[in-house]
């Protein structure tokens, strides 16, 4: 087993991806596995590796507003796929939206562990990967 946790980032915001990468470099326990700019690419990756637990991430940071397949559409497919994975994956919805509609909707989905409002700080990131 690896000593660090693998993280998959699903977000189309280049600035956010750039800065999160920088933060992950400083938080020693995480390894950035991959970045996808939309829900569909992320879903295809997960489908591809569904039987290979070692290649799947432990954490997914998921944006909501994305092209092609947005965060909600991703989650719809993801919940169907989740039982096939041979491991526990923590999903954090990470969005700039502060609308209670979005927050409540995200929290009502079993596979979502928490809703994180952007911006995220390095301290928040450390907290998220402590489990």
């Amino acid at each position: 087993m690896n000593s660090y946790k693998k993280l998959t980032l699903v977000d189309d915001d280049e600035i956010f991806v750039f800065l999160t990468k920088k933060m992950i470099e400083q938080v020693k326990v995480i390894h950035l596995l991959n970045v996808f700019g939309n829900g569909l690419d992320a879903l295809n990756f997960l489908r591809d590796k569904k039987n290979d637990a070692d290649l799947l991430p432990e954490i997914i940071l998921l944006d909501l507003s994305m092209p092609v397949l947005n965060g909600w559409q991703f989650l719809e497919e993801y919940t169907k796929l989740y039982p096939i994975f041979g491991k526990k994956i923590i999903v954090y919805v990470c969005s700039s939206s502060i609308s209670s509609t979005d927050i409540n909707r995200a929290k009502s989905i079993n596979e979502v562990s928490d809703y994180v409002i952007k911006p995220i700080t390095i301290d928040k990131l450390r907290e998220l990967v402590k489990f």
Partner: protein
Amino acid sequence: MGETNHKYAIDQPSIVAVTDEKGIITYVNDHFCEISKYTAEELIGQDHRILNSGYHSKELFAELWATINNGSAWKGELRNKAKDGTLYWADTTIVPFLNKDQKPYQFATIQTVISGRKKGQVAHKETFEELSHYKYALDQSAIVAITNKSGIITYVNEKFCTTSKYSSEELIGQDHRIINSGYYSKVFFKKLWSTILSGNVWKGELRNKAKDGSLYWVDTTIIPFLDKKNQPYQFVAIRFDITKRKKVEAQIKLSNKKAIQYTQVLESKNAQLVDFCSIISHNLRAPLTSILMLVDYLEQTKNKSERNEVLVKIKPVVNHLLDVFNDLVEAIQIQYDTNLVLEKIDLNDCLKKVLVGFDTQIQDCRADVQIDFTQAPVITSHQKYIHSIFTNLISNTLKYKSPNRKLIIIIRSFLKGKNKVVLSVSDNGLGIDLVLHKEQIFKIRKTFHKHPEAKGLGLFMTKTQVDALGGKIWAESQPNKGSIFFIELKHINT
């Protein structure tokens, strides 16, 4: 005079009785016993009143006695009661027998049973009375008319006259069409006539016209009266004035319609509000978050090259924020533009101006732009919106072109029915998966492609403008084949 004389004098089967001067029965014939159901023994020695049914007044009997005591015969109809309580009417003649002093010493009563006839007459009288009550009641409340089988009015009641403002003289002899308001079709009346001519009752609401041209509504029932061959020989029309109710109904309908309209406006406003909430939450807050995170990073980083790397990232985000902001203001503006100036727009001129803005892009990718406005070269609409709609749709075709083939853009206008014109913009680009995105295609912040310039406001704006023009917008698309957008607008013939 003896018994034989009486018997001789009258025809059987009369009821015959003889009483003395006080009315005590001294003789009855067999028929008397048969009808009265008393035996002769029971009757003889009794007062004739034994048969009194209590129906007639004391005055009648007083008059009867006065007549016969005076030596004259009395004729009349009496109702008698038999022993078992049954009643029978009898045509009665009482003849006094006078002594030498011209005083009656006995009376002969000769009766013929008329029960059946009398009963019928009474029943008839009662029915007649009841009927006239009904007629009175009907005349008070309803508009009544009788027509013959060809529809000529033969009778109208007073209410018919007051409602229609015609006199009965003006109406009788006329066809019912005199009050036709022209509201219903020939087919409607054909149906009415075929109903009543086949012997059925017709019910419905009719709008009629009074003599002064005013209109009134009547709830109508037409009853055909049938002869022995089941053929109608006349029709009775009973109508109730429901003009007031109709007016109220019309008002309710109108206010319902208005309420529905207001609700629709409210619903769409509410949907827009939710959209705006979403824009503020995502489209505006996202770039602000980015700026904040960039600034945070700058504060914490001492390394000069890293600082420079971050610094150059700030300006594009600020520019993007400004773009989103401007688009948003424009979108809000559209919602408040209620009085749009409509003018004739030459589509060729309008499109030429739009294409100037895309000149470089079109030349760069060598796109083939085909234009066909022959069917509807001129439309009446709002210049600015049509310009903006073309700009957005053409910008999309260029943004989402396929890298594998030369872009072909086809822009057309065509007529749909008499008063609709449709503009269409089609391409052979990337297309949109409408199965996946059908509900969202015209919503704000929806982008369907991984394109750096996709802000997700273009189609939302276009939809808002089309809505403001009272039009419709829809799309057909297949992934990797292309898209076609249709905009349907009101067409004002010039």
